[in-house]
């Protein structure tokens, strides 16, 4: 996957990634914004590759990337790999995290993980119509306040809320704000270990990537991924580690 397609290019379009659980309407939003016809379907797994499309808004051009749906950035299936690597290494200017209003709890799991990696996020609460049918209402302002990033409600099918979404995306890219978005508060035991690891990790990768998040990945014992991160941000350091195991082998071993 050519994730560095546009980085380092002057006048490049703003790269915006669409992340979210499977089946929350990412492709529908993608189609509505880009005018393309990425296939949508009501089953998890419909989108298996990164579709790209461009659109412009207020004389700015944007490149929108429709990521495969994932439940988490922690597990190790191919789609989650693709989505996570794009958010980590593709360095999109912004990630829109699409949430299904009717199962917000499960969806927030992913949103919180993305917010640990990057503050350049706009939350899109989609499927408001479906939620309403089930008597579920989402306090968008409250959500935005708690997460520390903008939260926009949409009904992707009818296009309701998409203008506000674009407005928020453009504004957030211009000015990402200085507030740290909501970070997950872990149980005491985890927090203590993380506090101990952060300075060590910082020495390794500097500030290129959120050291807290990297420390958590260390505890998560996902070595192949750690090595990928370190290699990406500080290649010299990988000497002397067990990075000989290729990524594919690791994948196979996991599966």
């Amino acid at each position, binding site marked *: 996957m050519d994730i560095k397609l546009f980085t380092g290019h002057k006048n490049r379009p703003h790269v915006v990634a669409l992340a979210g659980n*499977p089946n929350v309407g990412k492709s529908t939003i993608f189609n509505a914004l880009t005018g393309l*016809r990425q296939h*949508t*379907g*009501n*089953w*998890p*797994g419909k989108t*298996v590759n990164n579709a790209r499309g461009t659109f412009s808004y207020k004389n700015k051009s944007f490149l929108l990337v429709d990521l495969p749906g994932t439940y*988490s950035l*922690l597990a190790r299936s*191919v*789609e989650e790999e693709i989505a996570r690597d794009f958010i980590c290494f593709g360095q999109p200017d912004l990630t829109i995290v699409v949430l299904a209003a*009717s199962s*917000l*709890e*499960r969806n*927030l*799991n992913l949103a*919180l993980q993305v917010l640990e990696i990057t503050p350049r996020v706009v939350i899109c609460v989609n499927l408001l119509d479906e939620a309403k049918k089930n*008597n*579920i*209402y*989402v*306090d*968008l302002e*409250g*959500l935005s306040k*708690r997460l520390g990033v903008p939260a926009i409600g949409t009904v992707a*099918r009818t296009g309701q809320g998409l203008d506000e979404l674009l407005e928020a995306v453009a504004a957030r890219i211009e000015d990402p704000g200085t507030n740290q978005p*909501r970070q*997950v*508060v*872990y*149980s005491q*035991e*985890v927090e203590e*270990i993380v506090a*101990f*690891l952060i*300075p*060590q*990790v910082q*020495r*390794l990768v500097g500030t290129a990537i959120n050291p807290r998040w990297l420390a*958590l990945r*260390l*505890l*998560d*014992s996902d*070595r192949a991924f750690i*090595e990928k991160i*370190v290699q990406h941000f500080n290649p010299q*350091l990988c*000497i*002397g*580690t*067990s990075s000989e195991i290729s990524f594919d082998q690791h994948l*196979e071993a996991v*599966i």
Partner: protein
Amino acid sequence: MNEVEPLKTLSQIYTEVNRISHSTRINLSDQIVADIYANAAQIANEVVVRNPFSASCDWDARVDSILTSRLLGYPVMILLLGLVFWITLQGANIPSEMLATVLFGLEGKMSAWLLQVGAPDWLNGVLVLGMYKTLAWVVAVMLPPMAIFFPLFTLLEDLGYLPRVAFNLDNLFKKARSCGKQALTMCMGFGCNAAGVTSCRIIDSPRERLIAVLTNNFVPCNGRFPTLLAMATIFVAGGLASSAQMIVATAVITGLVLIGIGVTFLTSWCLSRTILQGEVSALILELPPYRRPQIGAVIYRSIIDRTIFVLMRAVVVAAPAGALIWILGNVQIGQLSIIGHLAHWLNPFGQLIGLDGFILLAFILGFPANEIVLPILIMSYLAVGQMTEFQSLEELRRLLVTNGWTWLTAVNMMLFSLLHWPCATTLLTVFKETKSFKWTFMAFLLPTTIAITVCFSVAQLVRSLGLV
């Protein structure tokens, strides 16, 4: 955790982390997930408001209790499949006739015009009798069913029915030691086997994914489907009144698709116990809420998409194939045309499996795209036969009978079409997905062997029983 010296390398950090995780009594990775969920639950609790007064009636549960019920789950599945086929048959009939009238009507005008401006006979042959006629066949016979079947299936997909199919069928897949999500990839295969093969990525286990890739071909794709419809309508249900004909044809097609599904299970079962041995892995399948399909968008999109796609393929593949057939049929070597020689050479084997040389040749020439198999077959019969004027759909039956077809030929034609090798695009996709010549070759060999074996057995059985 008092630090003596800063850790300098990654491996030192690893050692340290290992030490820490061994000294804690909790599983740290589990705890991290649980903690994130605790945060998510807290936020959701604060921002999600439920209206406690208007009781929502749980439509999803009601629908699911029918569609996945012990009693009705399987019958409803087969009925829905049949319904889709029946609507396709009914719906395709009239547009087919209309397209045939218009397109074949134009043919005569084109020929007349070409001859009038003094074009040589062979040019008229290649352009009109070869290219145009084949194109006209593809558009008239193949396009309407494709343009109807595809949106119908997309509607079921949009509704959210496909995961329920996977839910219903998973136990059978488990017995075959494969993944229930294979049902989803098969559903995609109805649209196009290449798309079906790509969708196999949703299966996590490489072994089970490979099984799904190798067997995807056993669901008839949109390009083969009209061939089956034509066979079922004009041959198997031929002599009946038109409404009964539709019902019988629908039953035949449904049965055929069920045979394909059966072969999929059997093949998966065998693969799991031979070259793709292994234990069955777990299944995690989300059943999304039912959603009202975007009927307008689906119909518009798939008709436009399909029409353009089929027309493009027709121009790219069918037109050259038509020209080729005309040339092969009109260049004589000795007593016979080239096509006659080829068919003659293939005929003994064709007869052995209940087909004939021309049919085999059509399947071989149809390798680039299954849509052109039937048109090529018609063209090659026409090229060597006496009949030159052949325009209406009813005459197809007569043409086939003239060429020695019996009901056995029609049945085996359907079976062969259902089971034979995948088209070039699908094989290319298999290669892209597996990155292996070996498995791509298997994806060719496996169906081919099965198709030949099945057709051979049926032909021998029927003949030995003296049924034809």
